């Protein structure tokens, strides 16, 4: 999923300072799962913003709404009946949702309430870790299911650097060396011979090196 974290409260407050009618929009997908921008967080942020303005003797009108998906025009359309009454939109979705709203509603002042972080997996309740950088040419089939692009700090593709220390990455002892993990798993699976096969220099164009990426499915684009 796409992970995110709420922005610092003071940054959000600064964005909203000129406005008094806010449409606060959550998203029911990834940001709900990583507890950054679902219905619950929308409620909490609205409450915090109310406390802040009440203290200043101001009233702030916050309409809370959580869409099924903010990155889908179909659902963003649901904001049509509220958008005119709002001075600004505060979105709690990942950057994709914020941009979908900004694209649909040309006049709307749209602000992000979260920092979008990475594509990750849940390790345990409340813990998420980066697992993929969307390189567009997945290598997991040759790296025993462990991604060297996102999990090696240098995205090395042919074994570890010289900095690996006691199996940990040289950036810090809390980060596993991805290549140690790959090697151990190749051995466990009895396919360590694969380690010897060199990977050619990776083509980074599908990873975004050739500009913004797009997927077009002709069979669906009706």
């Amino acid at each position: 999923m796409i992970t995110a974290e709420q922005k610092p409260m003071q940054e959000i407050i600064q964005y909203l300072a000129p406005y008094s009618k806010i449409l606060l929009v959550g998203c029911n997908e990834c940001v709900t799962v990583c507890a950054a921008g679902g219905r619950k967080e929308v409620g909490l942020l609205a409450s915090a913003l109310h406390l802040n303005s009440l203290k200043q003797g101001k009233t702030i009108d916050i309409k809370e709404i959580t869409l099924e998906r903010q990155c889908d025009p179909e659902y963003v359309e649901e904001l049509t009946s509220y958008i005119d009454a709002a001075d600004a939109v505060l979105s709690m979705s990942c950057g994709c949702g914020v941009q979908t709203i900004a694209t649909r509603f040309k006049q709307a002042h749209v602000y992000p309430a979260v920092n979008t972080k990475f594509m990750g997996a849940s390790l345990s309740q409340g813990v998420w870790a980066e697992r993929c950088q969307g390189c567009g040419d997945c290598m997991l089939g040759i790296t025993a299911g462990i991604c060297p692009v996102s999990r090696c700090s240098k995205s090395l593709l042919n074994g570890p650097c010289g900095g690996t220390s006691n199996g940990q990455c040289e950036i810090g002892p809390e980060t596993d060396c991805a290549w140690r993990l790959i090697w151990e798993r190749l051995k466990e699976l009895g396919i360590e011979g694969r380690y010897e096969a060199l990977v050619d220099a990776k083509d980074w164009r599908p990873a975004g090196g050739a500009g913004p990426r797009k997927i077009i499915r002709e069979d669906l684009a009706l």
Partner: protein
Amino acid sequence: MENYEPEIVAFCCHYCAYTAADMAGSKRISYPANVKIIRVPCTGKVDAIHIMKALEKGADGVYVAGCLEGDCHFKTGNARARLRVARVQKILEDLGWEKERVAMINMSAGMGERFAKTAFEFTEKIKSLGPNPISQGKIEVQAVS
């Protein structure tokens, strides 16, 4: 402001703090009338938003009173409540408010004295912090109008 009487909301677990409050009553141990009790089936039922809404509606302080650590009838309800209280404290800090306005307290059903003592201590703490900061806003609005 020194002599103001704060409004305090206490979310009390049915199995411990609420029973302890009852116990305080039957033992004729008095505790400050400032503390308004909301009985919950477990402090794990108290979400951050409930604490925030109490503050939004003007409570000067809010505490969650659950069973002793490790004694929750639903295993981890009080541990979760502690984390949620900490979350609200962080939000208050981010807003520039005193985080001491919200607290987590643990006690068992038999601790009538402790219930009264913590109610008294928390009330004193909130008195020293002064009224809910939203009252400042009300004063400013009155001054302007």
